[in-house]
Structures are given as C-alpha cells and as structure tokens.
C-alpha cells in the first residue's frame, strides 16, 4: 500500500445505493475502485459504510461521491 495511506471510515447512506448494484458491498467496492482490496470492514447494522486504506487525496475525493455522507480519518480511543 502507498506509505501515505491511512485507514478512513466512509459513512454511506445505504438508501442511496444505485440499483445497478445488487449489494451494498459491490457498491462500496465500486466506490473504492482499484482500491477495493483495501476495504477492511463493511458496516451494516449500527451504521452503513466501510473502512479502507486511502490516501488523503483519495479520501477527499471519496467525500464527493454521491451517497457518501462523510469520510473520517481513523483515530485512536484509549481504555480508561
């Protein structure tokens, strides 16, 4: 992977999935494009979207994709 990549969480509105994709996973894979193998998780119960390794530029472009609600850079929580 590019050394500048980070894990980003892409929050998607699943209701906006184009009908040409029969599953959310395929829709997410299309968003990630050539990076689809970088998808680490897909989320489908408490929220919808996926986590993937992206460069900052890719993350910025991802935020403009129709159906994407927001893109978050991974951060670290700590036990207390």
């Amino acid at each position, binding site marked *: 992977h590019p050394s500048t990549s980070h894990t980003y969480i892409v929050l998607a509105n699943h209701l906006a999935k184009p009908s040409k994709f029969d599953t959310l996973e395929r829709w997410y894979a299309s968003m990630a494009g050539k990076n689809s193998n970088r998808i680490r*998780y897909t989320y*489908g119960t408490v929220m919808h979207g996926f986590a993937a390794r992206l460069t900052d530029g890719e993350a910025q472009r991802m935020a403009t994709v129709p159906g994407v609600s927001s893109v978050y850079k991974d951060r670290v929580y700590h036990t207390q």
Partner: protein
Amino acid sequence: TTRSPWFMGLHDDFGAWPDAEFGDGVIIGFVDTGIWPERASFNDAGLSPVRSTWRGKCVDVPGFNASLCNNKLVGAKSFVTVELEAGGLLTDPSPRDIAGHGTHVASTAAGSEVPSADLFQFAGGRASGVARMARIAMYRACNRGCFTSDVVAAIDAAVTDGVDLLSMSIAYPVEPFYNDLLSVATFGAERRGVFVVLAGGNKGPTAPTVSNVAPWVTTVGAATTDRVFPATLTLGNGVVLTGQSLYNIPFSQSQGAGMIPLVRTSCGEYDLTPDKVMGKVVVCSQDAGASAGFDVERAGGAGIISVDNTERFWDTVMAQPFPLPGLLLSSAGGKKLADYMSSVAYPVASFNFTCDTVTGENRAPMVAGFSSRGPNPIVPEILKPDVIAPGVNILAAWSGAASPSHSEMDPRRVEYNILSGTSMACPHVAGVAALIKKRHGDWTPAMIRSALMTTAGPLDKDGRDIVDSSSAIGAVVMGATPLAAGAGLVLPRLAMDPGLVYDAGTQDYVDFLCTLNYTVEQMRMFVPELSKCARTIPGGVANLNYPSFVVVFDGRTRVRTLTRTLTLVSARPESYNVTVAAPDGVKVTVTPATLEFRWPKEKRSYSVQFSSEAEAKARPAGTWEFGHIAWENRKHRVRSPVAFKW
C-alpha cells in the same frame, strides 16, 4: 470483583440479586482488549446454554480455541488492527487478551462467583461480577489503543449478534456528535434497543473534561469504595505518613529495615542511576506508577515513594503493586514529606507494611480525582456524567500474558489485579443494567438509564454528602457536585424498582439533534431515511426528556421553564408529590405538584419554572449551583439533579 458489589448494596439472599436472578441470560457485549477465558471468573457452573436467538460465537484461531467458550463466555471475536513493520495492516484474529483490561472489565460486570480471589493477599475474599449470571461476549478492538474503524466494526458485530447491553471503557476527547463515530455507532445500537454504557474518562478534576456525552448513552464517573490498603512511612522527625501500597512482604522483614536515606528524583528513565539512588528510598516527584519501581530496583534503590502532587487526589490514592518496598502518598502527605526533606540535610525514613486490607473505615464513596468532570462540552444542557460507580482499587480477573504493573520488566503473573479508572466504574453500571434488563426485559435503554439515575445515591454510606476527593487539600472537604457525580452512586436495589421513569426513544433523539440545528446531511449519519427535520424540541435541548436538569441563566433570561414526562412502571396506581431543593435566589415552581398514576405505563407530564430572583444577579457569569427535584411517595423517591449555570 471483591467488595464492590456488596458496597453497592447487593446481597446474596435478598434484593436485586435474587430478584433479577443475578442477571441470568442477559448478554453483555464488551468492546475492549479481549479476554483470558481460563480465569475462574469465566466458569459456567450452573449456567444454562445461551438463548437460541443468539447469533454470536467464539472464533477458533491460533491462540484461542473456540472450545474455551462456554455458557458464560458466549462470544469472542477480534477486530484488532496490527500495523506491520513492513507496511500494511493485519487483523489479529485472536480475541485473547494480552493486556488485561478487557478481562478485568468483563469479570467486573458479569464474572461468575469465585470463592477466593486476591492480589498478593490484598483485597482477598469471595469475588463476583455485578451480574454474575449474565453472559459475556467479548469484541476485541483494543490493543495499546483502539482504532475507530475497529471499534465500529466491533459494535456493529455485537449488535448484529444480539447483545442486550454494550459496555465500553474507552474514551476520546469530545467532538460534535456528527464528527464522532462512536456517537453515530452507539446511536445505531440504541435504535436497536441496546443499552450502551461508557466510561466518562480519566481527565479530571479539571472541567469540562467528560467524554462520551451523547444523551443516548449512559456515562459513568469513578468513585472510591470503603476499602484501603494502608502502609506507613515514618520520617526521621517522627512524623508518620499513611499512604497505600500493594507491596507484600513477610511481617518480620517489614519490621527490620530501619531508617533509610531518602533521595528525590523525577523518576524519569535517565534520573534513576545507581550513583544517585543505590541503597536509598527514591521519592518520585509525581505518581510514577508501579512500573517505576522496576527502574528503581534495577538502579539499586531500596524503595520507592510515589507522590501525586497534583490536585487529582486528596486522600484517595490508587494502590500500586510495587516490586520493592514502596507506597503512594496523597498530595497532602507528599507536601509533609517535602517539607521534612527540605528541613534536614540527610532525610531518612522507614516503611511499615502491615499488608492489611482495611474495609469500612474510610469515608466512601468519594468521587475520584481523576474522574472526568462536566459540564457537557458539547451540549451543556445535558448533564454528564450520569452516575458514578466504584472505580478505585477494583480487584478483578487479569490476563495471564500481562504483569500486574503493566511493566514489561515485571516477571510476575497474577490471576487477579487491582486497577483504578472510569474503565472500572463503567462495567459496574453495565452489571446493574443487566440486572434491570433481566427484571424488566421490555424497558428501553432510556428507561434503564432513568432507573439508574433517579435512584442513585447522593449520600455516602454514613448518610453524609458524597465528597469530591479533589475539592480540598487537608481536612476541609466539599460535597461532590452533579458535575462530578452526576445523579450519584448507582444503587442496584432501588434501581430495580424506580416507580417512575423518564423514557425517550429514537424520535426524541432525532428531535434533539434537529434542535442542535444539524444539517440534513449531518442528520442522515444517524438516520439515513430522514428527509428533513420534522420538528424540534419546544423550548430547546434542555427539554429532552432526560432524568436530570440543566438550567442556564445567561444574564438576559431570568425565567426558564422546562417540561418532563414520567411513566409509571409500578404495577399499582400511585400518587407522587414533588419536593424541590434550589440555591438561594432561585424560585422553583413545579406544576402540577402532585402526579396521579392510575395504571402501569401511564404517562404524566409536568413543567418546572425556574426563576432567578433579584439577588441572584450578583452571581458571576459561568458560576454553577445545584439542587434537585424529587417525586416521592411512601415507597419511591424519583430524584433528578438540577444544575444551574449563571
């Protein structure tokens, strides 16, 4: 855990434990560092198989055999990301806990009964989780830290599997809810009826520092119990200082050491050199933790005294498992030590370790200095933390892969360890929530939170105000405000039967977010199907049907009116009268002053007018004062804290 369930008022033979069948069958999900399933706290003696609707499982991977799971540990999965040195990421597939934290919190909330547990003979006794017959599902998402992407994956899996409750002892500095994926994910959990409890954070006592402040989650602060591990230090001038220690040596050895020279250092890595500390007792100028003891030992030091010189402590110190003679002094004790050391050329002192566990003698509970404080940094109108629970010197099960001091130099391995933090308080509340869930399976998360809050105790075990350990240095102590203690200490026996509850559901939280003027795009992160905000909460976010009140007098407004709706959860008709406590200069009028409930689940609303009278204008802006509103009858007292901001 030993002691703390009983300190909360739980009893084996009557009250919440038998009434709730010890939480039998309720499934608590933990998002944490994993679990060490071989610990006795996870034995499943007497437990029936998990319910058929449960979709979770234990993974079968190297280092973690699925057969380690049983009728107690019903799920274990891993979502821990590991960054490879060569680049790239892997998910460590094992839910085995190599840190200890997850094992500790899981056993605190739902550990099975264990006849005897201790750490180096300290805190010994019968151990039990707060809901000892509840089931545990561990979702490992933390290693040294917990990546958001892993945490959300863990929450997603837990809710998919069908947990009843989620206990998460993790935190991050607060962000607006739309920018905080933990808020987004827990909103999704709440929508599916899962009660979520979170640690409030360890950034106290400064304010505002509380984390995890969304109204759909329950936020927990930490308090002491009535148990200490005293050890004394006799100074060369005869003054005796009492601290706490988990250092255990034979009595005969503890008596013979005599006076030893003292040397003060920062206890930093490069400050502990043999020429400086050999044969001396090292006085660390800050709480260096038990692991510093290994640095002192390596440099030839004879002992360690760790001093917390911040306002985080008054006389509540966290005991540390030092590997050599050592103790932790409060800031008050540390000041006396410093005065002595600066008064003589060659300061000396001797330790005395009785290795005692003393219960029932110290004032408790007391809000821990480290426990994060309100007001709520995101929405000041929602009071946080919600409640406090035992979170200081808690003994619970521990990983076989981690030392009790967390130091890699520490070769010791223990089955139980003593830790402090809001991490430890959080699973106590999860356990109580499991008891409530068992007794009242149809209650919403908000009803459970209301029961916890409105029955929480604002008084200590002797009937005095709960004290804030950071409120004073010395003999003068002050009561903990709701900004530190929320509604007070969770009391399970009362929480099982609150009489009335303040309920709220997804639509109420949607209205709440709309009232915060969130955009449609921001709202859709929480509610994808939303087309527009249909309504807001009349009167503002302070009118969310929450079990506590925040009244903001902003200098222009002298009158605030808030409304609430109560739901009867008793089986029989009941009548309640209101009582109010308010600061001088504030007039509180509740309408109506009596509420009559005729049948279960009946709802009744009331309004409260808070009027700031003339003399109240003298308060400086930003000042907080406190009171309460309580609905009472002969059987129940439904009490809400009220915080006034000037």
